[in-house]
């Protein structure tokens, strides 16, 4: 089985971002970047399937500027076999990303495509589902468990009411949630080895996809700030405050 994993380079999830004062966006220059956390879980799932003998090739694809190479290298160090950078300096909307990935899927013909459930910069939670539509494959989003049985998958998904298990035939698209696994930290020898694995760099323009944005971002603004309030000194005081709040609510 061949697995394609899509990984995105984003502002590191530990960075407290700053909105540019002119409202033009979020400050990303000079900010620490890393692989989107959800994508790490997707890579780990692929590597575990390979280790279990269920997959023989893992291809990593990332769409973005040249430095996105770094997140591909991280995935190669975790155990993937080769990488593709679809290079563009243009910020792309999720539909354009999905269309580019659909072209890569058409070329690579993977049995399984793994993605993160969402990118922690735009928080869209779109691309896996869009790719599934564009490639006409079944999807299992928000996966917290993946079982492979021959040519069928059994995926447990985290949903608003708890969890649910669905079955889907391959080829399929699965997006990873955080409880799917614990991503490994690649040991130094693996990091060294990753540099010698094949990594193709292809300009995004080569794929014949219209990358023009559909939406106009008017402005980006910071959320309203919350200031610290009062500290109370006893449980009794706190109980009185809660009781008053709740009684007021009942009055509504």
């Amino acid at each position, binding site marked *: 089985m061949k697995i394609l994993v899509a990984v995105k380079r984003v502002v590191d999830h530990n960075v*407290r971002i700053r*909105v540019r004062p002119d409202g033009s966006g*979020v400050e990303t220059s000079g900010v620490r970047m890393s692989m989107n956390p959800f994508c790490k879980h997707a890579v780990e799932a692929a590597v575990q399937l390979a280790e279990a003998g269920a997959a023989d090739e893992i291809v990593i694809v990332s769409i973005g500027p040249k430095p996105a190479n770094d997140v591909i290298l991280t995935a190669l160090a975790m155990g993937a076999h080769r990488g593709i950078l679809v290079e563009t300096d243009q910020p792309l909307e*999720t*539909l354009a990303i*999905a269309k580019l990935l659909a072209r890569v899927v058409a070329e690579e013909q993977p049995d399984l495509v793994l993605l993160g459930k969402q990118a922690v*910069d735009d*928080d*869209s*939670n*779109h*691309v896996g*589902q*869009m*790719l*599934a539509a564009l490639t006409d494959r*079944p*999807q*299992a989003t*928000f996966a917290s468990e993946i079982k492979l049985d021959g040519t069928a998958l059994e995926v447990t*998904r*985290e*949903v*608003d009411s*708890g*969890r*649910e298990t*669905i*079955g*889907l*035939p391959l080829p399929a698209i699965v997006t990873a949630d*955080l*409880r799917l696994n614990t991503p490994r930290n690649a040991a130094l020898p693996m990091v060294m080895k990753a540099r010698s694995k094949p990594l193709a760099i292809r300009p995004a323009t080569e794929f014949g996809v219209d990358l023009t944005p*559909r*939406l*106009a*971002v*008017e*402005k*980006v*603004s*910071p*959320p309203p700030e919350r*200031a*610290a309030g*009062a*500290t*109370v000194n*006893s*449980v009794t*005081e*706190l*109980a*009185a*405050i*809660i*009781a008053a*709040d*709740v009684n007021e*609510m009942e009055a509504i």
Partner: protein
Amino acid sequence: MSVLLLAELDDGTLSAATARTVAAAAQLGPVDLLVPGPRAAADQATAIAGVAKVIHAKQALLADGLANLLAGLAEGYTIIAASASTTGKDVMPRLAARLDIQPVTDIVAIEGANRFVRPIYAGNALETVTDPQQKHVLTFRASAFRPAASDNAAPVETLDTDIASAARFIAAHRTQSDIPDLATAQIVVGGGVSVGSAEGFKLVEALGKTLGAAIGATRAAVDAGYAPNDWQVGQTGKIIAPDLYIAVGISGALQHLAGIQGARKIIAINTDPEAPLVKIADVALIGDLFEILPQLTAELEKSGVRR
């Protein structure tokens, strides 16, 4: 501008989020509400103000089937919308790509016919976008909108298209409880990993019970197995907007704060006066949750606060 809105169902009944997303969608035009589920749910939906017509379809559980169903109806509408729930998130991007539309999702404010506000970076920034496409695919965060009234008597139209799905539903693992729905609750008590065990988490649940509150948890508490995954609040969990949020032993990581920005009042109980959650709380009590919670619950019980 006519709207086709996918109703939110939970276990075959109309969920509280639906009246909220109808209220949001009704700002954009007359709403036809698609209810893929039991007939009783469709009948219930007729009462929601703002609904022009209820379209009742057979139960469709999985994303590809629902996206196909919506795509088949899309022709007659300029807007196709849903709640930003796990169902809406699963289905709407798939539908959008099928229709070659860039969707606008997790809308928290409607500023015009095609001008919307959505949070990015775990709610640390708000993006205002205009959508000049001819057709729009949207999802709304239910917690950001007040529910529509229930004084309507909309007609019901029945569809008998057969919905096929390549994926197959195997089993639901539902968290059974009689506590209020987290996403729309008026009061939420949230617990962190510092409760130390599932037993410890019971202290949080006991306080919640006294207040008639829904229960939330941090990712760390869920990962540790102290609380079920559907109680997780935050960037990857539920987004809540209660009148009162009581955060017990929660540090306030930005991914958790992402879920509680809509809370009107926040109370923090924490041993650490420097915890980020304490820094944004309206009221804080610094101390050990194991001492505070039993006493707090008892005092509230005694004072007769019970909803």
